[in-house]
């Protein structure tokens, strides 16, 4: 038994069979159904799975596969209209037969849970320390002083920096990654036998995702903790899981060791999931765009956007520089990727480029026409050519309008000449363009899946036949398989319609398939701008290199080592950016000069690319 607790030792874990010694949780013939207005819907169908001691089981599948519901059912956390049958054996007890108070003694104490959204899973009005201490007091009866002491130790263990101060802070004062660490600390607070993490990294940047996965891997290694990692992303489990269960429509289609699943997938669906995560690695971006061909689709020169904020009602107003001197040209027909972590100013850049917010200084030129945000009404006719797609597919659609009405909306403004039939025809063309079933046109956004909603969003943008499309993280809220479809769709549109695209993402590998050039932003400043091929082949800026390293790779042989090297730390507060080069606080290559002087924006490699780094000439990354 001892070697099992050692966790991943070579490939020992790969040979352990599922029914072997020391099973922590066994789901047997688990069924979950939901009562709905349209009859009973089966979410989980005759599911049997085991989690061994010290094992990490990855459960992978798209939204609606029932992967979360299976484990929520085991914990008695189903929605009120849900029913579960079968067995969920945890040690000697069957969780499904337990009553509420008995379950409460197990949940949180012996089974810890981490959910997707770290903001909504934390109570907004409680200090971090108290939130971690609460389950300790509740389950172990420790005194509050003792519980707080243990809470502090837990925060240190999940590598929360400045833990003493964090204890007294409220959830909204923490970044997403910090909150997720706090959630993990809470889950660990009572030394559980099993940790269930439900999409713990989906809401996070790739850099932070790598950190959180690395933390989970470390916990598994050091404590031999059993773990269930539920995710839609095959590459997320590659670095940490021992076995992987692939789920589709409530059923497990394949269970095998992580090596077997990635190297010799048996089921067609597993291969489909794998090809979705692998396709992003194949860069098609060899398109050479003649830059000076004709009028650029978008020109930004020395764009600067400030926000004035007050941290408390009595504090002095402070200025945050969200976008700091961005200059770029987007050629007609070109796809430009803008990449950076949260807080890098990439969404602000998009909004300023769209003239939805007013830049402090700098020029914005759409298709050769300089635009002025003060003259919104003069802008209106130009907006026909410049459209946008947003990150959250559901939130970007008016919940009270049908898909058809949403798509027809821009036509009301830009094509008042169209009659009802003409509008309808245009809507149908747009639906076909985004490959959305025409029958879905009369549905409301909440009746559509995330991918379908995003297609409606794209159809709305495309219905006026624009020349420039600005996409603000259009796929980061979607399943990996759907991401691949949407990126593919955008790539096709760009090619067929000669569309120029500005594609914003936190993940370098997502933009790889689509973009011709890539701009890397950090704290509002340009770090590197280069043709996509060169960015991936030979990054010049250390930050680009770190971003490349953070993106998970669906290869269980390489990924654990990559996780272990995960970029440390988080971006500093934009309220007080570091002096000199803003990246120096996280840069492994920082030298004294980096703190003294702001690096110049220098052309490199015959002017095909530019970089802002003091040391790019001497570094080989």
């Amino acid at each position, binding site marked *: 038994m001892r070697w099992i607790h050692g966790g991943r030792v070579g490939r020992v874990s790969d040979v352990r069979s599922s029914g072997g010694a020391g099973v922590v949780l066994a789901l047997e013939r688990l069924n979950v159904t*939901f*009562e*709905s*207005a*349209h009859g009973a*819907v089966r*979410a989980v169908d005759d599911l049997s799975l085991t989690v061994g001691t010290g094992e990490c089981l990855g459960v992978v599948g798209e*939204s*609606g596969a029932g992967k*979360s*519901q299976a484990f929520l059912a085991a914990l008695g956390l189903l*929605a009120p*209209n849900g029913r579960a049958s079968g067995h969920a054996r945890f040690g000697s007890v069957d969780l499904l037969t337990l009553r509420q108070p008995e379950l409460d003694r197990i949940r949180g104490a012996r089974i810890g849970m981490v959910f997707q959204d770290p903001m909504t899973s934390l109570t907004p009005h409680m200090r971090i320390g108290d939130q971690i201490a609460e389950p300790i007091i509740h389950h172990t009866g420790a005194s509050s002083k003792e519980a707080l002491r243990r809470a502090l130790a837990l925060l240190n263990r999940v590598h929360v920096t400045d833990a003493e101060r964090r204890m007294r802070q409220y959830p909204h004062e923490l970044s997403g990654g910090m909150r997720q660490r706090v959630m993990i600390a809470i889950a660990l607070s009572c030394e559980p036998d099993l940790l269930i993490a439900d999409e713990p990294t989906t809401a996070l940047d790739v850099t932070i995702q790598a950190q959180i996965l690395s933390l989970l891997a470390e916990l598994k290694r050091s404590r031999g903790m059993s773990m269930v990692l539920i995710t839609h992303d095959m590459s997320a489990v590659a670095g940490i899981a021992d076995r992987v269960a692939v789920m589709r429509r409530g059923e497990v289609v394949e269970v095998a060791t992580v090596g077997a699943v990635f190297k010799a997938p048996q089921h067609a669906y597993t291969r489909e999931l794998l090809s979705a995560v692998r396709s992003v690695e194949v860069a098609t971006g060899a398109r050479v765009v003649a830059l000076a061909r004709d009028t650029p689709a978008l020109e930004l020169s020395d764009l600067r956007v400030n926000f004035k904020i007050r941290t408390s009602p009595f504090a002095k107003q402070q200025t945050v520089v969200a976008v700091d001197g961005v200059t770029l040209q987007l050629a007609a027909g070109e796809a430009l990727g803008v990449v950076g972590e949260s807080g890098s100013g990439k969404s602000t850049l998009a*909004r300023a480029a*769209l003239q*939805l917010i007013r830049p402090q200084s700098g020029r914005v030129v759409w298709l050769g026409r300089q635009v002025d945000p003060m003259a919104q*009404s003069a*802008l*209106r*006719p130009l*907006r*026909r050519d*410049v*459209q*946008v797609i*947003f*990150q*959250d597919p559901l*939130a*970007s*659609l*008016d*919940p*009270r309008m049908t898909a058809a009405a949403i798509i027809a*909306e*821009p036509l*009301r*403004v*830009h094509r008042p000449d169209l009659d009802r039939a003409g509008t309808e025809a245009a809507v149908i063309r747009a639906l076909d363009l985004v490959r959305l079933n025409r029958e879905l046109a009369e549905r*409301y956004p*909440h*009746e559509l899946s995330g991918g379908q909603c995003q297609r409606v*969003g794209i159809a*709305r943008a495309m219905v006026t036949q624009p020349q420039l499309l600005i996409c603000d993280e259009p796929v980061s809220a979607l399943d990996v398989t759907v991401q691949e479809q949407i990126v593919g769709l955008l790539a096709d549109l760009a090619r067929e319609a000669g569309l120029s695209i500005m594609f914003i993402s936190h993940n370098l590998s997502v933009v790889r398939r689509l973009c011709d050039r890539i701009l890397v932003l950090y704290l509002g400043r340009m770090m590197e701008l280069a043709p996509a091929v060169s960015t991936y082949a030979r990054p010049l800026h250390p930050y680009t290199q770190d971003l490349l390293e953070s993106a998970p790779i669906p290869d269980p042989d390489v990924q654990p080592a990559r996780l272990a090297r995960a970029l440390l730390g988080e971006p500093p507060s934009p309220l007080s950016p570091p002096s000199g080069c803003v990246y120096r606080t996280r840069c492994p290559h920082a030298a004294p000069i980096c703190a003294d002087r702001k690096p110049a924006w220098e052309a490199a490699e015959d002017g095909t690319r530019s970089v802002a780094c003091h040391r790019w000439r001497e570094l080989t990354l």
Partner: protein
Amino acid sequence: MVAGGVILLLVVAAVVGPLASPYAVDSLDWQHLAVGPFDSGSHWLGTDRLGRDLFVRTAHGVRISLVIGLVSTAISLVIGVTWGATAGFIGGRTDALMMRFVDVLYSLPYLFIVIILTTLFERGSLPVLFCAIGAVGWLTIARIVRGQTLSLARREFIEAARATGLSTPAILFRHIIPNLMGPIVAYATITIPQMILFESFLSFLGLGVQEPLASLGSLINDGAQEMQSAPWMLLVPAGFLVVLLMSFNLVGDALSDALDPRGQGGSRE
């Protein structure tokens, strides 16, 4: 559903009732002064001190109360929603100015305003009553709508509409206000009974509807004076008032649920 039926029944009773009864609202029956309900064959709910049929008068009272409730709510809705949504959506200095104006009106003792209005103009005239009551009611609606608009305006579909090139009024009326329908309807259905109550209160004070017309408030006022000798004079209009107000409150709850398209069907993962 039941509450909706009750409202419908009351409306029908208020409109048709007086026609079915042989008595007019102001006809005096000297043979039956202050008789109790069911004591005399043709006065179903009895008569008042002057021999006027209580059923007919209550039906009239319901009619007037309903009209006042609906019209003044409509007035306050139109003003309040437009005001609040405009302030919330435009924001900045406009917002501050518009909302301070609301605050100023709020801090005036509205009862005095109403009293002054009703004395300046003809006492008991219905249009004056509508305006007086509506002018008070829109303040709260404006505040609620502004708050909701502030949170809506940050949502991505509003940004999408702006990026599409929709003008500000178009965004207000096509995207913001329809999405506020839930809270607006819920608040309106609470406001209707409040308005009815407020009117009753004014009538009770003698500032509202004047004789020979009757509203529920003035009937309750009359009844209260005879409470010890003829309790039905108080209980009949009061009973109608309670049932009416409760029905509106229940309907409001149901409507705000039903008007939300997300409320239909089961939950989704």
